[in-house]
């Protein structure tokens, strides 16, 4: 008798918690998804619905006019291709260079390697703003320690090209690269030493062991780093607006979208353009900019969520 009552009380508590948890999760999911739904609702609205008081979510007149507008103003397909190339290339280069550095720091200890790793931590901690201006000036008159002026007579201007991104990602100093090195180092440290030693005993060199034994084992961390690096490069406006002033990539096109649209509509006078309409088109632009990311995420999310749990992100 007593036992059943306790049991039922426990039961009640469990049910209560399930309900509370359900409400919390659904509510917070709604908070996250709400802006996306709202953008979607705004994007398919006609201009006439904008001031209609009865239209909140579902528009009266559906239209694809906003999308057409965005595609033409942003030069969408070209921009998509550029962004894809840029993010894809930097992702691959960053992953390779960071994996090498991470493995070097984790397993191939040499004199002073701990000191250098402190340098990696330093790159994570220093705000990118601090080195922005010297970087900018350096890239504007790029000399490579005086080698280039010797060959061509004058320094080259690397701004407005993809070179800054290629160079920094090749040398593992691009956006948040310190974090990726950290992730790789932690992961490689987590792989048992015996695996590696077995390969050495069988006659494999360091590079063979790395490529054939360690990398296949490190796939979870590789996926994590690639996804982070791709997404952050895609959305990054800090470096892209500094290094690329006229090239068409998603971040720069998105931030200049309202202005460009005003030019298209009113010949450059933003003050006479309907700000609501501008905002509507801008929302559509944001939606279209993140659409490729969402599609990619839908395909890899399962893998991503599982892999991150196995990544050495956790010490």
């Amino acid at each position, binding site marked *: 008798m007593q036992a059943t009552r306790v049991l039922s009380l426990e039961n009640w508590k469990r049910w209560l918690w399930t309900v509370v948890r359900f409400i919390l999760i659904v509510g917070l999911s709604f908070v*996250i998804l709400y802006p996306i739904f709202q953008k979607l609702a705004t994007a398919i609205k006609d201009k006439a619905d904008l001031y209609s008081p009865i239209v909140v979510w579902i528009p009266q007149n559906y239209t694809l006019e906003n999308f057409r507008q965005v595609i033409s103003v942003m030069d969408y397909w070209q921009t998509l291709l550029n962004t894809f190339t840029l993010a894809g290339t930097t992702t691959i280069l960053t992953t390779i*260079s960071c994996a090498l550095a991470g493995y070097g720091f984790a397993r191939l200890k040499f004199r002073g390697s701990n000191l250098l790793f402190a340098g990696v931590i330093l790159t994570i901690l220093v705000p990118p703003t601090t*080195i922005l201006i*010297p970087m900018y000036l350096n890239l504007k008159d790029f000399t490579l320690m005086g080698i280039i002026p010797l060959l061509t007579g004058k320094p080259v201007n690397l701004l407005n090209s993809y070179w800054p991104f290629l160079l920094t990602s090749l*040398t593992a100093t691009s956006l948040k690269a310190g974090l990726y090195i950290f992730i790789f180092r932690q992961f490689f440290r987590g792989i048992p030493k015996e695996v590696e030693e077995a390969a050495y005993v069988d006659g494999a060199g360091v590079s063979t062991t790395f490529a054939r034994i360690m990398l296949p084992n490190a796939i979870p961390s590789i996926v994590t780093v690639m996804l982070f690096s791709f997404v952050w490069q895609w*959305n990054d406006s*800090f470096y892209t607006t500094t290094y690329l002033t006229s090239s068409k990539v998603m971040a720069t096109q998105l931030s200049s979208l309202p202005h460009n649209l005003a030019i298209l509509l009113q010949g450059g006078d933003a003050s006479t353009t309907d700000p609501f309409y501008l905002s509507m088109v801008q929302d559509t632009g944001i939606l279209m900019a993140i659409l490729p990311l969402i599609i990619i995420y839908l395909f890899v999310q399962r893998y991503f*969520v599982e892999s991150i749990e196995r990544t050495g992100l956790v010490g």
Partner: protein
Amino acid sequence: MKAILKLKSKPKTYAQQKAIWGFVYVLPWLLGFIFFFLTPLLTSLRYSLSTVEANAQGLSIQFTGLKNYIEALTVNTSFNRALTESIINMLVNVPLIVIFSLFLAVLLNQKFFGRSVARSIFFLPVILASGVIMALESTSLIQAVNDQNSGSGVINALGSFELERIMLQAGVSEWIVVYLTGAVDRIYQIVSQSGVQILIFLAGIQTISPALYEASKIEGATGYEAFWKITFPMVSPLILVNIIYTIIDSFSRNTLTDLVRETGFTRFNFGLSSAMAWIYFLAIALILAIISYLVSKRVFYQD
């Protein structure tokens, strides 16, 4: 020549070989570190201590001591405000984000229907809330107006208003009440900044051995006790990691970054801009040092 060859071909020990390879592997990063990090960092320090002028011959740099720092702190009208604003924002958000993400990680670790869907929704902010999208979203006019018009804004305000009243009547200190209700009002901001932190905590929770929970259950511990006695100490090293991550994550979106850029690129005052950036860096470094010192004393390490 022969001697060199001989020296080179001399068989090295296993450890030596590994050390050489290690250097080779780290080399790309080392080059980048020297050319794209250390040099700019030192140059920036030099700029901050001098007057930089661009003319036909290039840059003329004249050493002026701490003049730029003094100007930033006393003359410039917006620097102090921007600095305090971004640091206070950061300090306010860090505890909220860390506590919230720990709570959600515990929640998402439990077994329930639709867990994988919920997980993928909660990691969506990792993708969406970064860089330009976040910046544009905050200026979206339609969103602001819709929030005002449609129910959500009203309900939100009402909810936290009611909450405020209840808590004030219950005798909670006003400062705490304002802090908490502010968090409720900024829930989207907090949720959208805690994607990576949730991931880190979740990964940490999953490395805790289930045997610990089983043993505690046999001893009669409730879920609440299990959280404070097992989960919390075990993930406490990650709290430090997450605090640091949250702080460095706030670099990319704050008013000070904008101010530094504006001073540098529209007014071409490189010296002042570098000085501002260095003050910011020093302030952050100080905060990080204090927080790490305070937190790491309380962190539990298994070994």
